[in-house]
């Protein structure tokens, strides 16, 4: 934004050399044809810069877009949630049904996220550390939940575990209720969120290569020692990053969960479902109050993500010294 201001500084070597100093005292005109009066000078554009118009237009478009589609809706949520004052907002949150929804959401995330962290690590390990046929198929399959509409994921769960599904009757006979109950919600959430950790780890582990693990093996480490002393410490930040994204999605998932939940108040409603129900009942203030929880989750996720990215930065090489 302040490229002009920076470029005009005297410290810029690219400009300091060719441009005559504006404040310099008038000098006798050099002899020869070069003594033409200089035209009023504007800072010449550097070869690496785009025209100012283009830069400003791009910045303006980006800001407008972010404002219209992100900031305004987010502000609306907060404003609506607090419209009736903090007391009313708090009352909406401690409503038994809302509390149950929060508890269920936390429970689902607490099951789905560790499962997917484990699965993601196993998938990334197998994909980047072994050569086998069908590896590329596995990588594509990992992405499947990203490509499929969550509603379809939910339907698949119903089809498999529903009362008229393939496994449902057998499970029901053994006293296990999956669909319209917590297990179904967990299954749907696991399915929808399983790519996050794997997607984060696969490229990272691929780039890291196997050399450190080979070195550990040659140095006498067992498989478990290699995992805990070399692999996990190396991937921990990527793993955490994937876990944060996975968690955000697990708590916010609506489509798949909506299909399998059955919307039983106080029992099978997660936070996003609770918001929808409240909204459908014209309880706008309560709906926005619960929605503000999801907004808070987004903020926490964003901050955690930024924190990790900051941690990921390459360390300064200033400490480097000659051999």
């Amino acid at each position, binding site marked *: 934004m302040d490229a002009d201001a920076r470029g005009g500084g005297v410290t810029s070597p690219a400009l300091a050399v060719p441009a005559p100093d504006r404040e310099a005292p008038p000098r006798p005109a050099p002899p020869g044809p070069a003594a033409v009066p200089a035209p009023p000078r504007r800072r010449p554009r550097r070869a690496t810069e785009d025209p100012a118009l283009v830069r400003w237009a791009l910045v303006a478009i980006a800001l407008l877009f972010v404002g219209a589609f992100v900031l305004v809706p987010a502000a609306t949520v907060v404003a609506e949630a607090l419209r009736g004052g903090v007391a009313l907002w708090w009352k909406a949150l401690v409503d038994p049904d809302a509390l149950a929804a929060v508890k269920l959401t936390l429970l689902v995330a607490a099951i789905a996220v560790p499962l997917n962290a484990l699965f993601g690590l196993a998938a990334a390990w197998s994909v980047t550390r072994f050569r086998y046929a069908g590896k590329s198929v596995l990588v594509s399959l990992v992405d499947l939940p990203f490509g499929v509409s969550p509603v379809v994921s939910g339907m698949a769960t119903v089809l498999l575990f529903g009362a008229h599904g393939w496994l449902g009757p057998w499970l029901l006979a053994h006293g296990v209720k999956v669909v319209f109950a917590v297990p179904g919600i967990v299954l749907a959430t696991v399915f929808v969120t399983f790519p996050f950790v794997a997607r984060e780890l696969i490229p990272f582990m691929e780039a890291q290569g196997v*050399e450190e693990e*080979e070195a550990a093996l*040659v*140095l006498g480490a*067992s498989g478990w020692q290699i995992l805990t*002393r070399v692999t996990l410490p190396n991937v921990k930040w990527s793993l955490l990053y994937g876990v944060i994204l996975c968690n955000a999605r697990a708590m916010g998932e609506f489509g798949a969960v909506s299909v399998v939940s059955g919307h039983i108040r106080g029992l099978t409603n997660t936070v996003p479902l609770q918001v929808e129900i409240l909204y459908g009942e014209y309880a706008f203030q309560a709906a926005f109050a619960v929605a503000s929880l999801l907004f808070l989750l987004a903020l926490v996720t964003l901050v955690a993500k930024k924190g990790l990215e900051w941690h990921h930065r390459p360390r300064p090489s200033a400490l480097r010294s000659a051999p």
Partner: protein
Amino acid sequence: MSIVVREVEKAFDATPVLRGVSLEIPDGELVALLGPSGCGKTTLLRIIAGLESADAGEVRHDGEDVSARSARERNVGVVFQHYALFRHMTVEENVAFALRVRRRPRAQVAARVAELLRLVQLEGLKGRYPQQLSGGQRQRVALARALATEPRILLLDEPFGALDARVRQELRRWLRRLHDELHVTSVFVTHDQEEAFEVADRVVLMNAGRVEQVGTPAQVFEEPASAFVMRFLGAVNAFKGWVEGDRAFVSGLDLELVAPASAAHRARAHVFVRPHELDVHRAPVPGSFAANVDRVLPLGAAVRIELSAPGFGGMVEAELDVRRSEALALAPGDAVHLSPRRVRVFPSREDELDSLTASGL
């Protein structure tokens, strides 16, 4: 600990990488596996380490077949090409790793680590992380780490590859001195002839998955066993010609061979002359051929002359010492005559496999 490799075969996805490699490395020797990229030298090293398994053949350490033993159980020190230091551990933790996973007592680990850091002259840097070290320092950490459990075999994959020229020079000498001190059987992989010659007791020349020649640096340079070895070691002028008895013929030129080539009948052959074994004259002499000077390149102690000899397949290179070059006062465009002092002839084979041509070198 001696190393014996017998008839080892290895293929990756049906592409043969090693084709029946046999090799014997006596105890305490420092050996270089030398060859162009893609010749299988790194794969052979990894098979000796146990990081790859051979499709056929066997590997013996100290006479004992270790083919079935995993890399973990072989107690072999390995220095990887890019060092593979554990990036989240300090220098000290890196060096201690092998001892810690063996659950050695704390005091013993500390003493051994201090001893190793002294050996590689890095005592002051034990708290640093690998990213905070220069290439040469990382290499020494990798070496210290590999030596921690006192392995009796040390394997190094392109140990100097990632370093700049000056550091490389220092480390080569240092590695040689270290080997003379420790006498651990060492094998290192390199594609750099100078490096192999300077550091190794013996050089194993590899080409297209086979061992072409094993010998001391002087042996393989002076008595190359094949056309490949001749071409790979140093600059060389190659001509296509004929051989019959103890004479070779190239474009009507009749050359006497020092050692008679093994061709009773007239046969196609590669005729090689090293640039420094090519004399340059102003006037024709018996057994010389005409050429034109294209460029004169002073290389310090020697002067390289690039010439074109239309009758001899184009470009020819000669290398003169500075005094001879000054006496001749050559300039581009001069017409001169070249006479080989020494020629080496290898009969052409139909089935020639060559990593040099395969890799486009």
